[in-house]
C-alpha cells in the first residue's frame, strides 16, 4: 500500500526531522511538512521529492508531531511556516538560522561557509593556534563533508597532538568518501607544516611526527626565518650560562646536549660577541649552515676548541631538532644563485 503523492504547493514547512547539537549547523536537514489546508496532517520522512510532488511520505497527526518534538526526534521551527517549493533545500547555518532556498543557492552559501572557515583555520594554524584551527575546520567539515580539505585539516590538528587513532579514523573516513590516501597525506602534511615551530615544544612535535610517520606522512617543523629562529634560539643563547644550562628545561625540552651548549655559549660569547642579541641568533644558524656546506668533503670534524668545531657541533644539534632543514630550505635558493 502506497500513499498518493502530494503536491508541494499544498504544503508548508514547519520543522525538520533531526535535532542538531545546540540547534546549530551547518547542516542540510530533512523538512517536516504540514498540509496548508489541513493543519492536522503532517508529513515526515522518509519521502522522495520529484518535481512538485512529495512521494511516499509518512503521514502523522499534529499531536504525534508534537510528541516527536518533545521526544527530541524532530525540531519545530519557531518562525512562521514557509511555503514548500520544488528544488529547494532546507538547511541550518552555523548560527542556528534556518534557511529554505533553491538548492543551488543553498549550495553556494554552504560553500562560502566552508571557504571562510578553512581560511580562518589556516590563519589559526599559521599563528600556532591548533585548537582554534580545529574548531574552524569542524564547521567547514559540517558545511560540506564531501570536501577533503576540512577532514585533512582536522587530521593535521590531531597529528600535531600525537593522536594517532584520530588521524587513522580521519584517513579511513576520507578514503571511504572516495579520496586518495596520497591526497589526504599531502594535505595533512601541508596543514601540519603551517604551524610554526615555536608553537610547541620538541616532545609534542616528536609525538606528532611519530603519529604521522605511522601513517606514511613525513611531518617537518616549519620555521619562519628569522622570527622563529630568534624565538627558538634566543633564550638558549641569551639567558643560559654554563652553570645554569644543565638544568634548563628549555634545553631538556629541545633535546639538546646541555654540556655542549653550555660550552658553546661560553665560547661564542667570549670569542664572537660581547653580548648575544636576539637578532644575531639567526646568524649563528646561518654560520652553522655554511660550515656544513664548507665541510662537505671533510671526514673529520674541525679541531676541538676552534670556533668552527662548535659550529660543527651546533649543526648536529640543529639537524637533530629539525632547524637546519628549515635553514636549508630558506638558504638553498640563495646558494644556487651564488
Amino acid at each position, binding site marked *: *500500500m*502506497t*500513499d498518493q503523492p502530494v503536491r508541494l504547493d499544498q504544503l508548508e514547512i514547519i520543522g525538520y*526531522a*533531526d*535535532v*542538531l*547539537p*545546540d540547534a546549530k*549547523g*551547518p*547542516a*542540510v*536537514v*530533512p523538512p517536516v511538512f504540514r498540509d496548508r489546508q489541513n493543519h*492536522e*496532517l503532517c508529513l*515526515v*520522512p*522518509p*519521502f*522522495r*521529492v520529484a518535481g512538485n510532488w512529495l512521494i*511516499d511520505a*509518512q*503521514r*502523522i*497527526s499534529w499531536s*504525534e508531531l508534537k510528541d*516527536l518534538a*518533545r*521526544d*527530541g*526526534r*524532530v525540531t519545530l521551527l519557531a518562525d512562521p511556516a514557509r511555503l514548500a517549493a520544488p528544488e529547494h533545500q532546507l538547511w541550518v547555518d552555523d548560527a542556528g538560522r534556518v534557511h529554505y532556498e533553491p538548492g543551488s543557492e543553498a549550495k553556494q552559501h554552504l560553500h562560502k561557509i566552508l571557504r571562510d572557515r578553512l581560511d580562518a583555520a589556516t590563519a589559526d594554524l599559521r599563528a600556532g593556534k591548533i585548537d582554534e584551527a*580545529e574548531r574552524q575546520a*569542524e*564547521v567547514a*567539515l*559540517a558545511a560540506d*563533508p*564531501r570536501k577533503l580539505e576540512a*577532514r585533512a585539516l*582536522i587530521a593535521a590538528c*590531531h597529528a600535531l597532538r600525537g*593522536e594517532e*587513532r*584520530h588521524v*587513522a*579514523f*580521519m584517513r*579511513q*573516513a576520507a578514503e*571511504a*568518501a572516495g579520496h586518495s590516501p596520497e591526497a589526504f597525506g599531502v594535505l595533512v602534511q601541508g596543514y601540519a607544516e603551517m604551524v610554526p615551530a615555536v608553537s610547541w615544544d620538541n616532545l609534542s612535535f616528536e609525538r606528532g611526527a611519530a603519529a604521522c610517520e605511522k601513517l606514511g606522512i613525513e611531518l617537518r617543523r616549519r620555521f619562519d626565518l628569522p622570527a622563529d629562529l630568534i624565538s627558538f634560539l634566543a633564550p638558549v643563547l641569551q639567558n643560559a650560562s654554563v652553570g645554569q644550562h644543565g638544568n634548563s628545561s628549555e634545553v631538556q625540552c629541545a633535546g639538546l646536549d646541555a654540556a655542549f651548549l653550555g660550552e658553546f655559549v661560553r665560547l661564542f660569547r667570549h670569542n664572537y660577541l660581547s653580548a648575544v642579541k636576539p637578532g644575531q641568533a639567526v646568524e649563528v644558524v646561518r654560520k652553522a649552515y655554511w660550515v656544513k656546506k664548507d665541510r662537505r668533503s671533510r671526514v673529520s670534524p674541525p679541531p676541538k676548541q676552534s670556533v668552527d668545531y662548535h659550529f660543527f657541533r651546533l649543526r648536529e644539534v640543529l639537524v637533530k631538532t629539525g632547524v637546519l632543514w628549515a635553514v636549508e630550505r630558506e638558504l638553498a635558493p640563495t646558494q644556487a644563485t651564488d
Partner: protein
Amino acid sequence: MAQSLPLAHAMPSAAFVTLTEDPKKVGWKLFSPAKLAELGIKPLRPDSAEVALGTAEFVFVYCGQFRYPETQVGFVFGTRLERDRNPDCLASPFDTGALHRKVTWPAPSEPATSFLARHTLPVPRYREYLANRIQFLFAKPTDYVALSGQPLRPDPIGLQPKPPATGNDPRLWTFEIRVRNEVELSPPCLEAVFYQGRHAGARSVRDFFAARTGSVQLEEVFPEDDGDFAALQRGCLDFLRKKGIIPTSGV
C-alpha cells in the same frame, strides 16, 4: 536469513553527540528511557508510550533494518547481543510504541498491555517465528529489510494504522527486540556505525570513532534526494550484503 539478521538502533544527531560527550560519565552506551531518567540525562514523560506499555526499562532495537525514520546515526549489533544478553531480552513482531495511540488491533476492548503480553516472544527463539513470517508475508525474503518492501498478504496479527497514517509503515511488521537497561556501544556486539560526515565535526564523536577504528565498521553515509534516513537504510542493506546475509542484488 532470519537467523542472521543483525539488530539495528538509530538516533538523531544531537542525541548521538550528547551520547559521545558522555556528560554524566556513564560510558558510551544506549540506555533505556527509565535509565536515562534515573541518570538525569532525559526525563521520562508520563504520557509516553513506554510508560503506558510498561516498557520503559528497555532499550529498543529492530531486527534487520533501521526503521525509526527521524534518525541520522545508526548502530548495528550482531546476533551475539541476543546470546550474551539472553535473559534480559524480549521480542515482539512489531514496534510496540505503535500500540500507544497509533494503531488499532482486532479486539479494541483489549488493553494494549494485554495485547503486547500476548505478542511477546522469547529471545532468540523468536527467530523461528520471524523466518515463518518472512516466508508467509513477503514476495521475497529481502522485502523484509528493503527500503520500500511491503508485505504481500495481510498481517494475521491484524494491526491497522490510525488515520492519518496509512499502512506503509514498516514498523507495523518489523520485529522489535527489547534489551533491559542498557547496551554497550562496543565490540564484539557492536559491529557497525552509520553516520554522516558532519557528525565527525564534533570532537567527542571523533573520540568515539577513534576508539572504535579497526574494531567496528564505521560507515559514513551520504544522503541523496530521498533524505537522511534512506541513506542510513541503504548503509544497512550494504552491510547485510557484505555479510552475505542477503544476496548482492535484487533488494
